[in-house]
């Protein structure tokens, strides 16, 4: 393998990891801090993308304004849903899961009614740069930077601010926190809103490189959940480590063809064969299989395993 190919593969692995981090961060926050499986997270992602679309297409704002607006709008939606539905179901994890699933179907329906079931693109101005014989989109580097920034932001927020201390106290022991004068329902609400906002940000960042369509969340939700499950209970470390492991596998399998299976179909150029590996779809399959194998070995997820070891 020549040097530029190697560089491109490294960049693609980085890109896979970035996408997984973006998708999983908000979900991991909600799951890790509140023990809620939020199946509407994919639609928060979609809502973020559609906020950008609305801002750019209909309000004629610059792209970056739309991207800053998206997390705020989606955090608002998240807080509304927490107050209306999820608040009534704390302590019933399975019912929360079903209710958020219903919310997700409702949101898909609502967005379809408003925007129609068509795929729309968002134009942007960045070009490509050269790596030896290959050209690579600059926007992906921007995405990686933003993902790193979001992770750093979440770390600082929970480690060094008063809100972060109260939120962690609420998670660790709600009754004690409540006795110490922390408004725990408010903390849950804000944490959920933050998780939703992060999903909105992810949707906004990824909107220009994917087709914006009401069902887009469904395409990503499986990968996001797998990343969170493999990551385990510690939010940031878990997300980053599992995104790295899974992103590595996904990028490699999507890039390289493993083997071929000849079939008896009627193909236009006669040898009819299925390539295993070498497409994005097989990357996803490999990701799922690898995740299931990993969970057999580390049932608590990667970060749970490290926590046990210490």
């Amino acid at each position: 393998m020549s040097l530029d190919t190697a560089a491109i593969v490294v960049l693609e692995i980085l890109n896979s990891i970035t996408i997984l981090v973006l998708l999983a961060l908000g979900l991991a926050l909600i799951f890790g801090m509140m023990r809620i499986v939020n199946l509407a997270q994919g639609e928060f992602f979609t809502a973020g993308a559609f906020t950008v679309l609305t801002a750019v297409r209909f309000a004629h704002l610059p792209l970056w304004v739309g991207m800053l607006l998206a997390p705020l709008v989606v955090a608002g939606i998240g807080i509304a849903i927490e107050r209306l539905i999820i608040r009534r179901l704390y302590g019933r994890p399975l019912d929360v899961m079903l209710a958020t699933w219903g919310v997700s179907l409702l949101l898909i329906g609502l967005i379809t009614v408003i925007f129609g079931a068509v795929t729309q693109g968002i134009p942007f101005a960045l070009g490509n740069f050269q790596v030896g014989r290959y050209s690579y989109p600059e926007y992906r580097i921007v995405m990686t930077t933003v993902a790193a920034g979001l992770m750093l932001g979440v770390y600082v927020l929970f480690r060094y601010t008063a809100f972060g201390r109260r939120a962690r106290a609420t998670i660790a022991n709600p009754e004690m926190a409540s006795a110490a004068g922390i408004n725990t329902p408010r903390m849950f609400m804000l944490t959920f809103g933050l998780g939703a906002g992060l999903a909105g940000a992810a949707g906004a960042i990824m909107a220009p490189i994917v087709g914006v369509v009401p069902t887009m969340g469904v395409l990503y939700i499986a990968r996001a959940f797998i990343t969170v499950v493999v990551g385990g209970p510690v939010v940031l470390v878990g997300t980053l480590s599992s995104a790295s492991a899974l992103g590595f596998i996904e990028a490699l399998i999507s890039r390289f063809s493993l083997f071929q299976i000849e079939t008896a179909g009627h193909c236009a150029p006669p040898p009819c064969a299925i390539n295993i590996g070498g497409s994005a779809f097989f990357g996803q399959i490999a990701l799922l299989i690898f995740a299931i194998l990993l969970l057999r070995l580390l049932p608590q997820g990667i970060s749970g395993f490290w926590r046990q070891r210490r």
Partner: protein
Amino acid sequence: MKRIASTETLAALLLLVPWAFKPYTANVLAVYMIYGILALSLTLIWGYAGIMSFGQTAFFGIGAYAYGAIGLNLINRTQQTHAAVLGGLVVAAFLAAVVGYFMFYGRISDVYASIITLALTLVLFAFAVSTGGDEWVIGVARFGGFNGMFGQGESSQNIANFQIPPVTVWLPGMAQPFEFKINRESAAGYFLVLGMSVVMYLTARWLLRARLGRVAVGIRENEARVASLGYDTRFYKFALFTIAGAIAGLAGILFAAWGRFVNPDRFGLGFASSTVVYVLLGGRTSLLGGFVGAAIVGYLTSYLAEIAPFGTIPGDATPWARFLMEAGRRIVREQGAVLVGIVLALEDGVTPPLSRLLTRYRRWAWWLLLPAVVFYFGQRVACLQADVCLF
């Protein structure tokens, strides 16, 4: 004893249905029962072992695809589909066993199990959708991507393509193969589905009476205590999950044979949510619940699709009215609101309260049969007059 009696009455009534109704009605009832079998498998694993599985539709779809692939290859050579039915069951059970092994022997928590089964369904959907190309072929069976599975004729020019066969039996000693179809001449397909529903219902009831089911209920209530009594909870969960997967696979086989068609929608999120709604609405702790839920939801969605705001939006509606109608239609069709509503309001579904009512007013319950009988013979007369009856 009371419950058994009511179940058997219901089954006996369903036996009489095709005599009075059009083939259309028999077809619709058959698909409700097929969805009911699928819902039964979810009830078994969710209601009794406490493991919420979004993946029952994955096993359903895999069973359907496997039946289709084997059936298409067999039908023109051997004129029967015994091996296809068996193959569909084996493939579905095998997939469930593999996934179940990794989930339960890895001792991952129940919430993780739900997520993994959901991811499995979604990945299978992505897989089924991406098989549109000419190279995705097993023998003569083409996957066909979004268009669904079909048998490929001799050339690539769509000549002599053919559909998935119905369940066809040709045992030694039979003069010719027997097809389980539903049309004007025969209701055999309907009786096959009804028979399978009854068999699966009885199997599930027997399982729950046996050691497996009692341990499963124990696991639902308190897994640590069951484990401390010396039961290997991993094995019991694994076994029940595999059996539920096989039952879902059987429903898939019946579905593929009933519609003579299967496409990636069976792996879709919409179908997965419908299945959960069937079980939730019917009641997750009642084995009949899934059938009741499937019938209610199926009837309501097809009935609502015919009336004004939900079926056709009038052309002269103002934009706002059109928007509201469209929104209402989506809410009803996609069942999101139903799901949220049931979770918030109706925890046990409708079957337990219904059967409580029936038990309390047992003496009067028989009067309910009177309008049913009148309706039944009314239908018989109507279809005789229109000359569309089955027999």
